[in-house]
């Protein structure tokens, strides 16, 4: 099974996203590196609009990931309600 990864800037704006990932992806692993957080998981990682919005207390648009995303490994699937990274095999 292949691992997907997501790297986010270690900034305030990314914290609710990281929290939401923790809640929605129980198998995700978090690696804190200088100025960034690298998150890995087997096969897929999902960020849900609802979970992040609840964390912030205001509506969060998955496209806002543009502001904190550094890099990722996998295919991207983005829609109004979620942002997902996955491998197909």
């Amino acid at each position: 099974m292949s691992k997907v990864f997501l790297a986010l800037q270690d900034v305030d704006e990314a914290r609710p996203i990281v929290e939401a990932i923790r809640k929605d992806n129980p198998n995700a692993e978090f690696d804190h590196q200088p100025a960034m957080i690298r998150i890995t998981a087997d096969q897929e990682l999902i960020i849900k609009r609802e979970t992040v919005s609840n964390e912030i207390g205001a509506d969060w648009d998955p496209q806002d990931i543009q502001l904190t995303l550094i890099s990722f490994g996998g295919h991207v699937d983005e829609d109004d309600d979620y942002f997902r990274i996955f491998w197909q095999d």
Partner: protein
Amino acid sequence: MANRINMRDRYKHMTRLGWETSYQPMEKVFPYDRYEGIKVNDWNEWEDPFRMTMDSYWKYQGEKEKKLYAIMDAFSQSNGHLNISDARYVNALKLFLQGVSPLEYQAHRGFARQGRHFTGEGARVACQMQSLDELRHVQTQVHGMSQYNKFFDGFHEFPWWHDRVWYLSVPKSFFDDANSAGPFEFMVAIGFSFEYVLTNLLFVPFMSGAAYNGDMSTVTFGFSAQSDEARHMTLGLQAMQFMLEQHEDNVPIVQRWIDKWLWRGYKVLSLVSAMMDYMLPESPMSWKEAWEMYFEENGGALFNDLARYGITVPSYAEICAKEKDHLSHQVWGILYNHTAAAAMHTWVPDDAKMNWLSEKYPDTFDKYYRPRFEYWRDQEEAGNRYYSQTLPLVCQTCQIPMGFTEIEDPTLVAYRTTEYSGDKYHFCSDPCMKIFTDEPEKFCQAWMPPQQIFQGNCGGEGLPAVLEHYKFNLGADNMDYAGSPDETNWNKWKGLDGAGDGQVKAS
């Protein structure tokens, strides 16, 4: 959300703005995406997974810029350059501005061209956005580095150097090769191989290294650019999958491009390996670790995924796997020997750094490289610092001086030679030679710095004439860090021992 159309429809309505031309046939309006042999059945199958449209593009980019410039202003107002770990660190930035930022500009031009020439408008719009991103990258990098240029040598003539100086022909020729290829090859070269597979090895360790060494300005422009890279990565992957899905005849063409461009990119990144392991006073991660994480692990996952199209990992992956224990040490050795002709400083690693290298490279550093550095250090201390005064033989494909060794014998420099049209050509490795023999009529025309110097096209004969042509401030831009104006100034600003005027002492 109720009265808005959803993301998928928005994307469709705002990117599918093309039409079938009627005054001129389509193939005359878009003549360049056909000659490479890539067969496209239906451009409508192109889909950008980020579904980015111009309106949100401007919104997000505007927000990123505001944040970035606020930090860059704060950095210069607070003399942020004084907070870095050590002035040696600045040499990594010099290499970046000289070697990488001009590639951002080349990427801007390349994507602008593809943004005109692809028949499918979805692909054109995505390329146009990337073209704007890349222009933003070069501008913010030059702006960010301008603060360093006020205080350190080695920045002032970076575009001039990029087009002329020998080690910068490594990245320059890489991009010239891509920009002189057809649009589909360009997408595999830059969009897929460089942006998707290799960009992590360039930006992520570089920016985390900057953070680790106290350089908040570079971290910020780096990660701001990198947030665009995520979009570029999906474009590269999308372009490649599109080709593979459109026609099975495309598969061998794409495979050959992947093989060529991952190797070309890997060779360019050998400069990054030296930067990570030697130029950063504090290294958050070794080159080998970064290679394992970003190429072997992530790249491995990618190739597993692409296996369903019949795409395989390039056969030379084994060479890279063995070479990761040697690469950075050999490149630093090459730079150290030729610093008289380079616009950056080098040095022999100190004991703490050498111990770190032994730990990170237990199988090779103590055996092959530590003795070499210790010998060079002894020679320096005895007043015999050796600067090579001769021109190196460079590889016809990657343009790196021949200094890489045989995979089975790290004490033997690898040479490969072939003939084409009555002339001899030299290579650092089998994959570099293979790239040449696949396209000899292209690579025999490469602008080779040593040959150009010998032909009298770079200011004249001998090193002094060439360095003058390079517009180096001699003794300031080049040579060792020890004894450089950078070192003297740094010690003075920081109140360290060894300050030029001897007045201030360590605080």
